[in-house]
């Protein structure tokens, strides 16, 4: 029993680590889509910022500078998306596809030219990364059964970006549902003409939303390369941006349900890793690929209206044209 408990706690612990970039990216998507801009370029922004963070940390020797550069790169891609879709009213999906592919190619080309390591960046030393933090009081609480194990293995021992990701969710909720900016953000995604009539700039609001998304994606990318791993490798985001997008839809564009979806998908991923090659009683060997595909399958089923209904912001995907 103790053994099972420990395994469960360790799996949940892994789930927390895997969920972190999903949470950050999904919150980024939440801002963009709540403002009426579809953002399928979460993946590209994360990949580009993961590369930027690892390169900057390797060259400048500081994880904080790495994080800063990552946020800068991610924000410039977000602004490119804004320039194409808000200013020039280009197709939001096409622009997102372009950014994703651009990040996939450019990270390798630049990595090859700068570091000559087949597209990756040099391995980072410990002081160039975000390391895990041991929470105070582990030694004392450790002696209490169950709670001690949970505190030691699950809650303590993550890096600062993991904790920030979990703290950002209530912040996002507060900003979106309790501030003036949040009210306007939601309004501009539902009915931009009304916002315009009220004398607010639709364009400015949408740019602001994308900028916030850029910052969050930048943190997510930095987490992947300089906190969760110790270098950048080719295509290292591996579709996590799309899982975040799925979580955003699964959570129906609301911060806490989105958080739950991210945790669920993260947990599935951790379970898939643990079940690799394991034969379970009764069920037999579980195909890992099925668990890997689960987030996508669940999202498709949800979108088809078989489990509740996912209603996106009303004006999402529609460029705003004044005076029509």
């Amino acid at each position, binding site marked *: 029993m103790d053994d099972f408990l420990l395994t469960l706690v360790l799996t949940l612990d892994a789930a927390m680590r895997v969920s972190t970039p999903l949470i950050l990216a999904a919150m980024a998507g939440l801002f963009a889509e709540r403002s009426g801009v579809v953002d399928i370029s979460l993946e590209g922004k994360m990949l580009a910022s993961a590369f930027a963070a690892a390169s900057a940390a390797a060259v400048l020797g500081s994880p904080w500078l790495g994080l800063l550069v990552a946020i800068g790169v991610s924000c410039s891609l977000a602004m490119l998306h804004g320039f194409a*879709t808000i200013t020039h009213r*280009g197709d939001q999906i096409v622009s997102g596809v372009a950014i994703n592919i*651009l990040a996939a*190619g450019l990270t*390798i080309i630049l990595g090859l030219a700068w570091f000559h390591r087949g597209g990756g960046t040099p391995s980072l030393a410990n002081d160039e990364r975000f390391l895990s933090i041991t929470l105070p009081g582990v030694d004392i609480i450790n002696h209490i059964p169950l709670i001690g194990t949970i505190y030691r293995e699950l809650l303590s021992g993550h890096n600062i970006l993991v904790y920030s990701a979990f703290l950002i969710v209530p912040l996002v909720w507060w900003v979106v549902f309790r501030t003036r900016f949040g009210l306007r953000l939601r309004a501009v995604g539902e009915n931009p003409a009304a916002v315009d009539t009220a004398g607010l700039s639709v364009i400015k609001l949408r740019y602001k939303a994308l900028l916030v998304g850029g910052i969050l994606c930048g943190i997510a990318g930095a987490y992947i390369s300089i906190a969760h791993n110790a270098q950048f490798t080719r295509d290292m985001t591996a*579709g996590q941006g799309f899982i975040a997008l799925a979580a955003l839809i699964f959570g129906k564009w609301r911060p806490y349900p989105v958080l739950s979806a991210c945790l669920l998908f993260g947990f599935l991923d951790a379970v898939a890793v643990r079940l690799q090659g394991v034969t379970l009683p009764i069920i037999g060997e579980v195909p890992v690929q099925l668990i890997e595909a689960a987030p*996508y399958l669940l999202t498709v089923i949800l979108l*088809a209206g078989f489990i509740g209904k996912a209603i996106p912001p009303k004006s999402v995907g529609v460029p705003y044209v004044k005076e029509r």
Partner: protein
Amino acid sequence: MDRNTRINWINRLLLPLLNVLTAFAATAVIFLLIDVNPVEATKILLYGAFGYEEGIGYTLYYATNFIFTGLAVAIAFHAGLFNIGGEGQAYIGGLGSTLIILAIDPGASVWIFVPASIMGGLLFGALWALIPAYLQAYRGSHIVITTIMFNFIASSLMVYLLVNVLREVGQMQPQSAFFPSASWLPFMHNLFANFGVTIEQSPLNLSLFLALFFCFLTWVFIWHTRWGYAIRATGLNSTAAVYAGIKPKQIIILSMCISGALAGLVGINELVGYQHRLLLDFHFGYGFGGIAVSLMGRNHPIGIIIAAILFGILYQGGAELAFEMSNISRDIVVVMQALIILFCGALQYMYRPWLIRTLAPIQEQSHG
């Protein structure tokens, strides 16, 4: 020229040309960033693509894939849909061709194998697009999101099948058994040899003619049949199309199935024509490349052929470039693809206001 003619010229010729040039200019900037002389790089690239017969063969071989996926994206675009699932449909289409070939008795004739494998690719590609199409038409889920999800589902499914079901007995690699040789599409160099013409060996096979044939079919279908008319009407204004007696839901299903079927033919060129077995990720990048090809070719078969050849040049020339220069890899082609999608797609109207202001200004009315 009066103003409308000028605007027409701007929209049809000047603007697309300027967009492509911008994409190339941006690529040149990237070359300069990584200390590569863009002129030198272009020379190597063009030599790799055209300099020798084998290079030309490879160029056209890659172009064939891009024609299939480009047509696929274009048909969906005409119906006002964005099929971003070409990757998955190409992958599953290849599975369809493989399953049919492996199911047929190895002694059968080529006249059975080839049509059957083409049907397999068409059918499986269409089926993989049918589910998102049905969900969009009848359950209201957005086609872009579902097709993205289906790309990932396809990829997981194929890994599972290749590792657990289709893997050749006694092999470690996740790949199927070789197809019987009667099922192979003839290589161009073999075909030409029959007529006494010797050309260098390359993976170029009969699929190129198949691709050109489907370009012609697409042209006839879109512009000269009532279904094509219905598709275009729905794409331009689905509300108005309803009053013409068109049922947009059926059009979504029809156009997506055709789109998926065309993408499903990538496997014919890659697997039946060249590799002769099912491989992991054989389709990689062609689905997304199809988006760039379709945007650049303005959704017209002729434009798609030209754009596909350009991408074939980039693919083959890019390989030559990576071979010649140590500090560059084939991923430069991916970057160019992205820039073309950006400037010919997302930013396609960037220059339009400026062009119209300078070349076709509104004439002052003279009040006599």
